[in-house]
């Protein structure tokens, strides 16, 4: 009960932190002024953006989800670089976000069901173009990615809370449906989460990975109960502990600003997570929902690379083109396994399909592994 009481307060704190960060960034780095409000009406099959031609500056987007699916709203720069985003907008709810938009072409994107390319509307922003120095764009990368992490941790906390509630209520179908969704947000920020070495094993440890005498806890403990025995009657303490630990890691993650080199290594690390844990079906060995985690890792890797995009564009445009092409190829390969609002189960894929996914990840990793040297060249 105390958890329930604390939850909204935490959420508000997270959202405020995100807004504050964006607002500060606009004043400090770009010196542009806040501008008008853009309304976004999101449904299951539409993404109506009130205004698609905007002056350069900071804009407020009011996103209302009147569809039946949970949705996300993004403002993308070139290469799907996340300029601003709001996650996890439940049906019937409205959320707002601030986006600071220098002159250029952008896309406003709604993602009902939270997967796939989403529905896209071009935003044309006119006015003074801003040119950042290399140092400024690298500093901006850390800030941009921190904002991304904060948006993900907010959604992680919400979804984990709902998952834990379903487990404790004995709602097995509900818990099974929420499990891969909550993990999507976890997987997107895994390098940040893993940097807290004490919390990661107890949240995300797999059976058999524990130290001697250490209990098997976290997502996978509950996953095993849900899918193997179908009995979660003794999972209450594990569910409570999971939520406590996720709250802790969310609080800590929101304080982290990654250095550009950490961003580059994190982007590569997320792809390694796919190659070593998801392609093999090890991550979700009971539920076989590995492709949700795969997609989460891929999203997170892309967000980290794209945060560095302005710097990379200026310093190695050929590499950016190669990375774009290989992210697109991997997303296309993964996209063939879409199933409803989610993904096919791991054990529904045949060896040739896994092989194709593996090949695309191998190629993408080879390209992303070159980012660190470009960043370090600064």
């Amino acid at each position: 009960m105390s958890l329930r009481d604390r939850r909204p307060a935490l959420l508000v704190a997270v959202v405020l932190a995100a807004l504050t960060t964006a607002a500060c960034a606009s004043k400090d780095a770009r010196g542009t002024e806040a501008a008008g409000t853009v309304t976004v009406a999101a449904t299951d099959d539409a993404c109506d953006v009130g205004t698609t031609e905007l002056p350069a500056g900071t804009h407020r987007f009011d996103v209302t989800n009147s569809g039946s699916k949970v949705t996300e709203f993004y403002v993308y720069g070139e290469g799907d670089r996340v300029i601003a985003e709001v996650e996890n907008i439940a049906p019937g709810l409205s959320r707002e976000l601030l986006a600071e938009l220098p002159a250029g072409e952008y896309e406003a994107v709604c993602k009902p069901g939270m997967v796939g390319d989403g529905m896209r509307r071009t935003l044309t922003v006119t006015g003074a173009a801003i040119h950042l120095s290399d140092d400024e764009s690298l500093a901006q990368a850390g800030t941009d990615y921190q904002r991304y992490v904060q948006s993900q941790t907010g959604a992680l906390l919400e979804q984990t809370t709902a998952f834990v509630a379903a487990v404790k209520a004995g709602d097995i179908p509900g818990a099974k449906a929420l499990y891969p969704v909550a993990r999507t947000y976890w997987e997107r920020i895994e390098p940040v989460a893993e940097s807290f070495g004490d919390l990661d094993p107890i949240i995300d440890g797999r059976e058999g990975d524990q130290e001697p005498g250490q209990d098997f806890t976290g997502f996978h403990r509950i996953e095993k109960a849900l899918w193997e025995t179908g009995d979660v009657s003794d999972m209450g303490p594990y569910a409570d502990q999971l939520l406590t630990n996720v709250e802790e890691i969310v609080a800590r993650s929101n304080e982290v600003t990654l250095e550009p080199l950490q961003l580059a290594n994190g982007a590569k690390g997320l792809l390694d997570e796919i190659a070593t844990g998801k392609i093999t079906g090890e991550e979700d060995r009971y539920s076989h929902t590995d492709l949700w985690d795969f997609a989460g890792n891929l999203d997170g890797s892309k967000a980290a690379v794209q945060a560095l995009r302005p710097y990379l564009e200026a310093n190695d445009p050929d590499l950016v083109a190669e990375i774009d092409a290989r992210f697109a190829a991997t997303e296309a390969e993964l996209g063939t396994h879409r199933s409803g609002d989610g993904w096919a189960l791991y054990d529904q894929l045949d060896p040739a399909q896994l092989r194709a996914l593996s090949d695309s990840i191998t190629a993408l990793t080879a390209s992303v592994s070159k980012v660190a040297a470009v960043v370090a060249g600064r």
Partner: protein
Amino acid sequence: MSEQQEQGAQRPAGLSRRRLFGLVSAGTAGVLAAGATGGIIGHAAAQPEASGPGPDDAVPFTGRHQAGIVTPAQDRLHFVAFDVTTDRREDLVEMLRAWTGAARRMTAGRDAGPVGAVDGEQYAPPDDTGEAIGLPASGLTLTIGFGPTLFTTAGGTDRFGLAGRRPGPLVELPSFPGDQIDPARSGGDLCIQACANDPQVAVHAVRNLVRLGAGVLSIRWSQLGFGRTSSTSTGQATPRNLFGFKDGTNNLKAENDQALDRFVWVGDGDDGADWLAGGSYLVTRRIRMLIEPWDTSTLDEQEQTIGRTKGAGAPLGQRTEFDPVDFAKQADGEPAVPPTSHVFLANPTNAGTAILRRGYSFVDGSDGLGRLDAGLFFIAYQRDPASGFVPLQRNLRRDAMNEYIRHTSSAVFACPPGLRGDDDWWGRTLFGG
């Protein structure tokens, strides 16, 4: 690696590295197997052998033919077949150029990339993986081949505009009686045969080529070989295969250019000669040996199966290894060399064809039933599989040895001619440029 290579070139005999290269080029030793009839390919065992290269030395990367075919067989093999995963011809060509540069460096005993394993930027992945630091060139050869599916996929797609350039002989092998071919480890769009006298050098070479191929190709199957099963120089003792028998005694040594031109190298008038002349067709077969039944068979059964004595390796009815096989000779009213023995059926006189063999023994652990997963990775080069391996293998359908072997993998590749100089690249004659 380069420093060590420089040192490695200072051989005890005091020969310069340049001088060594000359000897290697001239001494195109090899083995011609089972087939060509006597006149053209004389028994070369009596020829004096020039002092050849040492096991640490480098083998020249360029030449009229690719190295690794008639090059004296090194002790170790790492063979890899690839699927090309891109449909973009320019990406494939770019990778082949990158491969050529890396192969050129590695066969000279240097790092795969121009910078090296440890001299690059701290935050970039090294352009060489490093496990060959301190190791000499070790006779490394890297030989490339193009499979039929590079030209036209199994589904009939011409991905790279090459369909019209596929030579007639480059087709998948037919199936043979008793085949237990696993499609997952057969075929391939491209192959690399890496041979070296140090297994780590061969593995290093393959690993670095695979790394450079990310996004363009991926490994389809691969095979390690730990011991050569072909004697390729008149100076080398005939090796024993995992049956415990000397293998390839009567294979024809290839100092004889006439024989190579007739049986191994694609000629100027042959189909596909516009890009393949001076090249050769490579056939691989992973031949699992059923070790446990073999080991519990009697010595007599073993010798009757092979057609040679196990000790000296002499043809049955003869005394020493290099005595001629006498098919007419009788012993106790029966042919001394049984007509179902391997030697009888594979011998040039009875098979009517010739191939150049370069096979290796392998042991891939065990099979889960407590049996060794072991055998011979058969490699043969020939001018045309249809007149080389195929009739030879058909001739072996009555081979008593079939009771003890299973063919589990099969592939065929067209290996282009050698590279002409420093600017040449693998596949230039096929892709142009």
